[in-house]
Structures are given as C-alpha cells and as structure tokens.
C-alpha cells in the first residue's frame, strides 16, 4: 500500500546541506573614520609591498603575517590599504618567493567573506589556477588551499572551472606512489588538492567536470589511505558529489563502500560524519544497501547512535540508517542491534534535521511487523502522533509514513486513535504541500482499515469526506493515487460511501480514468470497484465514461493493475449498459486470459465479469429472436 516517499534530496543546481553565500556580502559602512591600529600597522608595511624590490617585499610580507590575520580588523585593513591588489599582482610574477609570501597571507585572509569576493573580483582565481602548474609543490599547495577558501561561493566556483582549474586540481591527486605508505609530500599536495575540490564540488557542473577529468578513480585510491587529514577532504568531496547517480555508481563499483564503512570507526568525528553522509546519499540504490550490509556497516551505524552530543554526526548517521532500512534484510539486521529501541529514544529533544531522519528510519522499519510492536512497547507512538502538528514539511512526510506504518497493527491503532491521531492526519490533507497531502492520505488507509468503529470515526470529522473527495481535483499524481487508495478503504462503509457520492465522487473518479500511470490506475480501479456498491453508482460510472478506459487497463503489464481492474469491471458489469461497452472494447478476450490466473481474487472477478457479459448477450439474443 505504501508508496516510496520521494527522496529528500532534490537535485538543485547546488546540492549539500551547507549554506551557500551567493548574496552579495553586506558592505561595511563606507567612510568610517575610526581606523584601527591594525590599519596603520599594515599600511606601513604596504609601502614596501607596493614600492619595494623583492627583498623588501619579502621582509614586509613576512612581517605582515605577525598580525592576527584571522581577525576581521586585519583582514579588512589589508583590503582597505590597497594591499589586496598588490598581493594578487605579486601572484602574477615569476618570483616564487614573493608568490609564496603573498599566498601565505591570502590563504589566511580569504576566510573572510568580503575578502574572498574581492579576490574573485580582482581576478585572483585565474592567477591561482595558473600557479597550479608550477613545479614548486609548496606553492601549488598554498594556491590550492587558497582556492579552497575562495571557492565558497557560486561565482568563484564557476570561475575556477572556466579557467581549467578543476582539471589541474584533479592532477594534484595524482601521485607517484599510493600504497599503505603514503609519502608525506605527496599526501600534502593531494590533501590541498582535495580541499579545493571539496569546495568546488558544491556546484553541479563542477561535479561533472571532476568526473570528466578522471577524478573518481583517484578519489577511490586515496580513500584507501589511512591518514585522516587527507581522508576528510576526500570523503567530504565524495559525499558532496554523491548526489549524482554517476558518482553513486562509481562509489559502488570501485569498492569504495568498504572503505567508507571502515572509516565509520575512525576516531575523528568529522570523518565519521562524512562517511555516514556518503552512505546516506548512496543508499538510495539497492545494491549499495546490500553492500553496506555485506561489509558489516550496519552495526557501526547503530553504535554511533549513542553519540548524541554531535548533532551533525547524529543527523548523518540517522540519515544513513534511514536509507539503509529501505531494504528488508537490513531491517532484520537492525533488529539484532536493537536499533529501533534506540531510535525511539531519539524522538524527543532532537533538532529537526535529526528527527526527520530518525522518523524516516522508523517508518521504514515498520515494514517488519515485529518492529511495529517494538515501537509501541518503547513508547514511541505518542511522540510520533504529537509530531503530526509540526510545520516542517519534510518532517511531516516522514511522520505520516511512520504513523501509517504503526497503524497497521490494531493495538497501535487503538493508541493512535486515543491520541486523536486520525483527526490530525485528516487535517493534514489541508496542508498546501502535495507531498504532505499524499503521505497523509497513504497513512489514512491502514487507519481506516484497522480502527475500531472506523465508519463512525470517519464521519466524526466535520467536512472530512468532502475534503478528501475534493482532493480528487488535485494536479499531483501522488496525491491522486493516495487519495484513491484512501477512498477505496473509506467506501467499505456504506454510509460514508453515500456521503461521498453526494459530494460527487463518481464523476471525479471517472475524470481520472484516462491515465497511463499504472500505480494510479490500480488504486483508481480499486476505488471505483468499492464505490460501485451504492445506489446507482454503477450506472453513473458508465454514464461518466469510466468503463472504456478501464478496459484498456487490462492491456498493462502490471498484475496488480489487472486484479484491481477486474474487480472494478466485475462490479460495473452488474449494469447491462456497462456490459455493452465492455463487450465493444474487447474485454472478454482479455479477461479470458486471466481466468486461469493463480491470483484467486483476479480469477473470481474475471470469471464473474465474463459471466455477466455473457448472460446479457444471451438475454439480448433471446429478446431479438423471441
């Protein structure tokens, strides 16, 4: 019954959870008259940088580094004294020492957002990219590290790419010997290259460029290294790029999952976070989920749930667990580690980014009946129902799914109902976000099915039936599919079906019949089948032209569609006019093929429908010829 909730990773132009700074940075008040002592100190040195020969310049540059360059006052002093232009001009000379001295300063001050925008505006990036060709490896490292800082906004990343920077940065990852002994100098060059690539990879086009430049096998090679200072930017880059399917494929096929799992046990929390993030993104794919299990990654993930202090780590880990739990074999494994119980403890007092993933995970775990009970016994149902009042849409989607999953057990359903959960779900149908609407409708299906006095309960929601029938006017496919499924359930109660008929459910369903979407077809046919059981609805469906399209559904390849359609057609065939239409549309031949099916319900419905059509044909013959 459940649909797979759409992935939380929309493919935007930029990806990743890190904030980007594309708006023009706020300018300080111009013309401020109180110049700091740092300003004067730096201005004095600026004289020699601007007007001195290389020897004087170097002395001044080295002295400039005695200022606290991480302090904003100093950073801005360098800019305001016109030193920044000179520093960038120095990069354009052939004097390696001056270039080095300049970059050592630029690397520090480019941590400041105003400075890095200024560096980009002054054409500094292009020059730094050129420096990546230098034979001096210290210089290359400095250039790469500075690029890593400057490329924190979109325009800068584009500039790097447009001047051939990505290719050169990837080349920094090429080193002569990468084995278990990584020589220090090669590692340092690669580390700086990886830092820059990590920054640059936030742009989608750069992710592609890195791949085209042959970056992936190099990233894979360095992943086998054991130095955490290079592993962090390497994994950082990989998890950033893992929003691209081509990267996910490569991560899988180049054996990187094994290394990612291994590094979950690192002592460095930052490294653990990035590995978990990478797994989170890659586990969209089934093969990856299997690989994580095969390399025994599920247990370390579960263990890391104990680290509740580091919220970024917790968010990444819960995300990874969520996606891994899509596969049933993984859910069974998680049961061994009592993951569900631990997840329930995380339902309170956690930031939203953690909650979304925790609940996503619980929702997936509900595919196993035992877990639905575990959630109840651990006291998880109440916090879940409470979250139905949240405002964050991504959170609501997951909560709906989890509540729906729990609702499959009558014991759970009793608790949900007592906490007013069904009413809360129903009112979420009013939420403007279609994903929220759809997930709420899906969740309502088991609620309606398993609640005690379900019919009465539904009737008690004022305006509820009108609301859900009107959702059949939505433009969103998922909403339509879920609402049909819900209506199919609701219609099992005669009174409610009568009310829905009054609200025009029949013509609205018929209007949807012309669709090629198999999931929609299936649930629509089920809804029609159940809605036939009131008054003259069968006739009305015929009049609103639902029958002919339904006949076409039998040509689909999906057995679930066949079953639902056969059920609907059987019900509709109680009306003679519908039989005529079905006969004209070649239904008999198609249903005959299904009479031999192993699916009992399909078999019976097909046979029943054919029988009705034949009976009518016989009666017509008799009437004609007396």
């Amino acid at each position: 019954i459940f649909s797979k909730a759409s992935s939380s990773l929309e493919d935007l132009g930029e990806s990743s959870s890190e904030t980007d700074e594309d708006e023009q940075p706020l300018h300080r008040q111009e013309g401020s008259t109180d110049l700091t002592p740092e300003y004067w100190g730096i201005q004095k040195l600026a004289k020699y940088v601007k007007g001195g020969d290389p020897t004087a310049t170097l002395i001044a540059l080295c002295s400039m580094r005695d200022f606290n360059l991480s302090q904003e006052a100093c950073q801005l002093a360098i800019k305001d004294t016109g030193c920044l232009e000179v520093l960038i001009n120095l990069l354009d000379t052939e004097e390696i020492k001056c270039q080095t001295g300049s970059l050592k300063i630029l690397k520090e001050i480019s941590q400041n957002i105003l400075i890095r925008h200024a560096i980009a505006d002054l054409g500094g990036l292009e020059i730094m990219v050129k420096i990546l060709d230098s034979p001096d490896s210290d210089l290359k490292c400095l250039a790469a590290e500075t690029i890593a800082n400057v490329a924190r906004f979109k325009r800068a990343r584009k500039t790097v790419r447009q001047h051939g920077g990505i290719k050169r940065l990837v080349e920094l990852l090429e080193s002569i010997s990468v084995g278990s002994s990584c020589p220090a100098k090669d590692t340092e060059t690669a580390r700086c290259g990886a830092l820059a690539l990590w920054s640059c990879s936030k742009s989608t086009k750069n992710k592609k460029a890195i791949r085209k430049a042959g970056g992936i096998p190099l990233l894979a090679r360095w992943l086998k290294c054991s130095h955490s200072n290079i592993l962090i930017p390497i994994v950082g880059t990989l998890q950033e790029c893992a929003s691209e399917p081509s990267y996910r494929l490569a991560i899988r096929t180049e054996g990187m999952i094994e290394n990612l799992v291994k590094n979950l046990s690192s002592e460095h929390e930052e490294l653990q976070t990035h590995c978990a993030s990478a797994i989170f993104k890659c586990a969209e794919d089934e093969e990856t989920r299997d690989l994580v299990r095969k390399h025994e990654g599920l247990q370390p993930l579960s263990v890391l749930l104990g680290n509740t202090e580091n919220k970024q780590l917790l968010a990444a880990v819960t995300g990874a667990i969520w996606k891994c739990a899509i596969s049933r074999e993984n859910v069974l494994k998680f049961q061994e580690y009592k993951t569900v119980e631990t997840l329930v403890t995380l339902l309170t007092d956690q930031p939203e980014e953690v909650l979304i993933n925790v609940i996503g995970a619980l929702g997936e775990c509900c595919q196993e009946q035992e877990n639905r009970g575990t959630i109840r016994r651990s006291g998880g149902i109440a916090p879940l129902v409470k979250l139905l009042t949240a405002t964050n849409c991504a959170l609501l989607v997951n909560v709906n799914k989890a509540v729906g999953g729990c609702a499959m057990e009558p014991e759970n359903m009793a608790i949900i109902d007592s906490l007013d959960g069904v009413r809360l779900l129903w009112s979420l149908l009013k939420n403007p976000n279609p994903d929220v609407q759809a997930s709420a409708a899906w969740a309502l299906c088991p609620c309606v099915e398993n609640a005690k006095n379900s019919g009465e309960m539904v009737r008690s929601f004022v305006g509820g039936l009108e609301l859900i029938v009107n959702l059949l006017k939505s433009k969103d496919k998922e909403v339509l599919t879920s609402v049909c499924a819900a209506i199919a359930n609701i219609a099992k109660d005669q009174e409610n079906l009568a009310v829905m008929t009054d609200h025009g459910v029949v013509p609205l369903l018929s209007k949807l019949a012309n669709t090629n979407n198999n999931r929609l077809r299936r649930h629509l046919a089920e809804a029609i089948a159940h809605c036939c059981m009131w008054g003259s609805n069968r006739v009305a469906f015929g009049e609103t032209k639902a029958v002919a399209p339904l006949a076409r559904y039998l040509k689909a390849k999906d057995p679930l569609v066949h079953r639902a359609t056969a059920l609907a057609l059987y019900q509709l065939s109680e009306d003679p006019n519908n039989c005529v239409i079905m006969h004209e549309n070649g239904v008999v031949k198609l249903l005959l093929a299904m009479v031999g099916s192993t699916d009992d319900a399909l078999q019976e419905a097909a046979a029943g429908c054919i029988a009705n059509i034949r009976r009518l044909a016989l009666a017509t013959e008799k009437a004609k010829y007396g």
Partner: protein
Amino acid sequence: AAMSRKARKLLLDSLTRSAKHFNRSEVECLVNLFDTLVARARSDFAGAGFDRTVFRDTLYSAFGMTDDVVLDRVFSIFDRENKGCITVVEWVEGLAVLLRGTLEEKMKYCFTVYDLNGDGYISKEEMFQMLKNSLLIQPADEEPDEGIKDLVEIALKKMDHDHDGKLSFTDFEKAVRDENLLLEAFGPCLPDIK
C-alpha cells in the same frame, strides 16, 4: 703547472669525500671548470687559483648574481685563508653549499654573507647597507633614508628574538626556521634555481 694523473685522481677522491653533496663525476666537471677559469685568470697565483674578478664574472654568468656587496662577501667566504684567490678545494666545497647545501649549511652561509664585518652579528648599519637600494618607489614627501631605516626596524622586529638590537646567528636561525622565506632576507645570495 699541470697535475700528474695520479695526483689528480687523489684530488678527485678527496674532494668527493669532503664535498659531500656531489658525486664523483660532478666533482670532475667542477674541477675541469676550475682549470678553465684558472687559465683565464691573471697568472699571479701561479696556477693555484683564480681571483675575485673571474669569480664574480663566473657567478654572474652562471647564477645571475649581480649585487656587488653580496658578491664580495661570497668571495670572502670561499677564500677561507684570505689570500685573494680561490683554490680548487675551496671552489668545490664552496659550491657544494651553494648548490646543494642543507638548510643548516645554507643558513650559516647566508648569515656569514650578511655579517659584513665578520663580527658574528648583523648590525643595523649592515642591514642598512644591504637594503639601501631596495625601495624603488619613494613617497615624495619622505627623506629617502627614512624609508630604508624603517625597513631595517621592521626586519629587526621580525628577527631579533633576544632584543639586543642586532641579529646573532641564533636569532637568524630561529627566524629562518620559523619562516623559510627569510633565508635570503637581506638580498639574494644563493643561485636562483628556476
């Protein structure tokens, strides 16, 4: 006077040992070069070495070194016994530091170059001497020397760790270890390897 073959071999062996950074064939090349230079020099030294002029020309054409003050100092360093000419041993061993010296060897070398009067300290006056032509663009309203004096103060502030107003080798060494770029702080005196 030409050397006998045996004597030459002994010389090459001994030099290969003492100038640790060169291998034997490199030593041989340098010795051959030495012979060429001696032939070019004045014959005052009876073929035992070549003089300051030849030395400065050679360093200029080979390494692009142009500063007179520096070149004089370098010659004095090579010419250990202060005789006015460079012998083959001094030549090879001196170049070993210039071209392939370790950081320690280069630090000692540079410090000695900059210590113009050889008293074991680089004084403010010596710094002034070496930096006096380093400010290419002078602000119009300033005394020309003021700019250089300020630069000397800046350098001192950066490198004078024991605050005694002059740079001892200890000061210099620490400064260079903290920041390698300061090795040739007062002017280029090592070959420019591009």
